[in-house]
């Protein structure tokens, strides 16, 4: 009679066990260490889901991609529910873009507007993206498209990373997204040494007046519109990302569309959940366990470091032309891990000079970083597609 009963135990591979362990670690980091719990917990659980054999929650093609298909295939048992999620949510880019819309409704660009030069730090802080892109490709382990997706981890901004990876190298989506989001939480550990290495005590002590200029409502409203139109005319392929981010922000600042801004927030919560679970489900043992995954984990660190370097150097360079010097630390905040990077700048600034409050100034480049990363994603799409 036990013949009727099918057990999965027999089919567990060592790989599956290891993956269950990794999933467990992610969940632990999320819950106990509070590292991006909103994403790591779903990702971890997603890993559980796909590493229990013959559960049929997710089925894969030979090259390790989720088998595509709609409701019909599900009914026929060809694919699992997570395939559906992947197909409708990620394959179509809907989830990353709508999440970005939600992010836009939460962002306040007034520090950026108060000091427009911050936008430039947001750009120079993309250095890590391109450096790691080179290294990854020249290492010979990754195709040019895959390298681009690994590089963009250095932008330390989730949605653009997912967006680009879905388009260029879906097979790496699982590892890349996991690494991107888990390292964002490591920014406070990775950045300070770099900052101290590249700046003199004197530079770090530069005072900046505690509060920023009052930004008028009109400026707040014009900002998203201008940025979007200019950016997407110059880099058309970045229009979806920049557009959604700026649209969300417009809903926030217009002052007459609170209802929609709130809706953006709700969408955000729901979609982060779906993103996490479907990303986790992209990491079955057979896909995850190969040297490339480990390499990605290593390269990501480099990416973060070089991005910080880029931001700092950018700030130091700009300083050459300013009479009222700015504190180069805020350049490091151009890495768009919001708001960690800005907080790091604040703390470092305080260490060098307890009377110094850099937070507001650091938020400028920090926000700009999000725009920078979206542009980079668009540029890659334009050049590699």
């Amino acid at each position, binding site marked *: 009679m036990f013949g009727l009963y099918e057990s999965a135990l027999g089919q567990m591979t060592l790989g599956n066990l290891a993956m269950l362990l990794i999933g467990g670690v992610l969940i632990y980091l999320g819950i106990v260490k509070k590292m991006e719990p909103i994403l790591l917990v779903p990702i971890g659980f997603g890993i559980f889901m796909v590493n229990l054999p013959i559960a049929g929650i997710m089925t894969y093609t030979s090259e390790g991609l989720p088998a595509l298909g709609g409701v019909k295939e599900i009914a026929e048992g060809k694919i699992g529910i997570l395939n559906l999620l992947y197909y409708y949510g990620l394959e179509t880019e809907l989830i990353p873009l709508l999440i970005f819309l939600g992010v836009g409704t939460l962002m306040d660009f007034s520090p950026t507007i108060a000091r427009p030069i911050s936008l430039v730090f947001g750009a120079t802080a993309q250095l890590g993206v391109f450096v790691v892109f080179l290294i990854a490709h020249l290492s010979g382990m990754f195709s040019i498209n895959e390298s681009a997706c690994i590089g963009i981890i250095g932008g330390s901004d989730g949605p653009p990373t997912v967006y680009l990876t879905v388009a260029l190298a879906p097979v790496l989506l699982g590892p890349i997204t996991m690494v991107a989001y888990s390292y964002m939480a490591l920014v406070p550990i990775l950045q300070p040494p770099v900052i101290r290495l590249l700046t003199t005590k004197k530079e770090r002590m530069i005072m900046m007046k505690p509060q920023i200029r009052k930004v008028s409502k009109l*400026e707040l409203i014009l900002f998203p519109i201008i*940025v979007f139109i200019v950016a997407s005319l110059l880099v058309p392929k970045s229009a979806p990302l920049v557009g959604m981010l700026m649209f969300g922000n417009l809903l926030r600042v217009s002052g007459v569309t609170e209802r929609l801004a709130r809706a953006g927030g709700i969408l955000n919560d729901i979609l982060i959940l779906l993103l996490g679970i479907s990303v986790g489900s992209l990491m079955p043992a057979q896909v995850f366990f190969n040297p490339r995954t480990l390499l990605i984990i290593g390269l990501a660190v480099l990416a973060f470091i070089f991005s910080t370097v880029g931001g700092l150097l950018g700030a130091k360079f700009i300083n050459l032309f300013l009479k009222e010097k700015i504190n180069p630390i805020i350049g490091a905040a151009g890495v768009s891990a919001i708001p960690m990077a800005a907080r790091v700048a604040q703390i470092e600034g305080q260490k060098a000079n307890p009377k110094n409050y850099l937070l507001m100034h650091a938020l400028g480049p920090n926000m700009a970083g999000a725009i920078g990363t979206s542009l980079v994603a668009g540029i890659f799409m334009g050049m590699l597609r």
Partner: protein
Amino acid sequence: MVQWKLAFLISGAGYGINILVLIIISVIIWIVSLMIQKKEKAQ
């Protein structure tokens, strides 16, 4: 196989373009906000 030329070109041009675009934007924003501030000073 490794496409040296393309890789270097993309990373160079990409970084350049990225900075260029954001400089353009920042200049525009800067000018606009200056105009707006002037206008508000006037009132």
